[in-house]
């Protein structure tokens, strides 16, 4: 397979994304290196073929957004909404990620080796997220399906208004959000965490994680709840 390099200091982003949407699909190029991203927004968005993209440096908003099938690696940090609405494939951030990482992802795997900001995994719809560090407040807000593995700590209101997504946390949780509760880890949970850690290339004891899921008490209107949530 051929390798191709785009230097964003010399080439416009449009050229990179155009290639990734058209030329990349011909299957001759297996690996694209993106140099000098310099925090540019919307790098490698909307991919839908199994190509490897390596962003050498820091990416801005929505890197790897709506990814399907491709593997996008960011050697630095990523801005808001990395891998938002991912369908499949993998987005791997070696550094830190800003707010809304993996928002509404339907599938695929998002790995963040460092910390993630606010609302990581918000509205998650079936994707998997592994965070090597800690996550900010309101992470997994309204998460519907999929799993989040948090190796560090979580901020306030973790898993607020959760649907069927499941969260695993190793460190401390500042507070759980409305309708989220701790549940015992089963053997399946331990296997799931072990498998996700393995796919993420992170070394932690899967038995050291706690499981958080929905109490399902907000699934239906309830006049007696007094909206104290």
């Amino acid at each position, binding site marked *: 397979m051929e390798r191709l390099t785009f230097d964003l200091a010399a080439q416009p982003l449009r050229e990179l994304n155009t290639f990734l949407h058209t030329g990349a699909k011909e299957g001759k190029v297996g690996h694209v290196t993106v140099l000098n991203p310099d925090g540019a927004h919307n790098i490698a968005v909307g991919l839908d073929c199994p190509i490897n993209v390596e962003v050498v440096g820091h990416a801005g908003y929505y890197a790897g957004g709506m990814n399907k099938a491709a593997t996008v690696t960011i050697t630095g940090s990523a801005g*808001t909404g990395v891998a938002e609405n991912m369908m499949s494939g993998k987005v791997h951030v070696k550094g830190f990620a800003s707010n*809304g990482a993996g928002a509404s992802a339907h599938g695929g795997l998002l790995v963040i080796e460092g910390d993630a900001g606010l609302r990581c995994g918000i509205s998650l719809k079936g994707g998997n997220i592994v965070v090597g560090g800690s996550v900010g407040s309101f992470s997994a807000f309204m998460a519907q399906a999929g799993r989040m593995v948090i190796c560090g700590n979580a901020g306030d209101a973790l898993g607020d208004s959760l649907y069927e997504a499941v969260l695993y946390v190793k460190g401390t949780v500042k507070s759980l959000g409305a309708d989220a509760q701790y549940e015992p880890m089963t053997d399946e949970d331990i296997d799931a965490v072990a498998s996700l850690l393995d796919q993420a290339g992170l070394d932690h004891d899967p038995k050291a994680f706690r499981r958080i899921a929905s109490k399902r008490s907000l699934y239906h209107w309830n*006049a007696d709840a007094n909206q104290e949530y």
Partner: protein
Amino acid sequence: METKPVQFKNLSREESYGYDRKTLDYIRNAAAHGLYEIRGMGAKRKLPNFDDLVFLGASMSRYPLEGYREKCITKTLLGTRFAKKPIELDIPITVAGMSFGALSANVKEALGLAATEMGTSTTTGDGGMTPEERRSSKILVYQCLPSRYGFNPDDVRKADAIEVVIGQGAKPGGGGMLLGQKVNPRVAKMRTLPEGVDQRSACRHPDWTGPDDLAIKIQELREITDWEKPIYVKVGATRTFNDVKLAVHSGADVVVVDGMQGGTAATQTCFIEHVGIPTLAAVRQAVNALEDLDMKGKVQLIVSGGIRTGADVAKALAMGADAVAIGQGVLVALGCNGETYFQNGGHHDAIADYNALGTTPGFCHHCHTGKCPVGITTQDAMLEQRLSPAVGAKHLKNYLKTLNMELTTIARACGKQNVHHLEPEDLVALTIEAAAMAGVPLAGTNWIPGRGF
């Protein structure tokens, strides 16, 4: 002699204005349930609207066109600012965003069939794009909503335009709502939700928080679609002057402004009636914002919320809209609030089913229950059979055709060869309120309240 107190019938039964029978019912209902009322449709209260405006037809000082003979162009271009493939419509009347979930799959298909025949567009809704509506719609606008239910890149690529929904006229500041009885297995799967939950959509987008972020989000959608498709931004009418300016700043090709008469399939009544501003006021503010930025004609404006007739369309266009979007009128054309439904070659009485909902044709707003007696706002396997795509499409096509003929009738009477040449100068207002909101003079005067004499 004994004197009896005199009883005056009208005085002793005087209804209180503040505590009228409706308000008494409201309080009793709140006391009985401890929960607000949720319903469908739009604001029911009396609001200044397009009926409060009239056209100044041609006479001595203007020259009219022959009603049936001379050409009057209705072609409408949307998305000319940045998109490589702007939307070209044959008529400036589009079908507003309504979800599969709120509406049955049959209805979504009917909307597409009729719109395609009339050369106009339909719009998806909260919950994603169904294959039926994509197949039946030549021009389909794909909504990107806060919930992102069913939102995916394949459908982004299949769409003809993308509409980023910030808000809705019936509930600016609120997310969608779909009660459990409508979350059937297909709806649940499309939205990745458990079956039967009372679904409350997010009111904020998950991955951006303000106009500067939105500019980047719009750029992302442009990059994903290789800058081909127009990007619309839809706002519920509130601080419309500022919101339209911010939408333009964010890079929108088209701004959709939805006034408070706009419908909903399920929202708190207090939200429908008390949040947002009337469409009439919103159009003026939106047009002022575009003119202020010198973007009139560069960024197109679609107006929705209570557009019912060809005259409404003409007035919206004269005030400066490029097109309108219709939701409730479209549903009424399909049979909403009708006494009968058409199935197996015959009309069937639906009144008993209305009565079971505690209502009667003409007053029904029970879209939220999913028990639509005429099979429109339902996910029930039996009820949805009451509207077939072909029958619905026929009626909707007739309705859209009528509106378009009325629109051109008025435009010709005002001497316009193109409906987009209608202008505010063609309008006057019948009430001081409408004159002030629409920014056109009170009929017979040159007085626009708020602008001196």
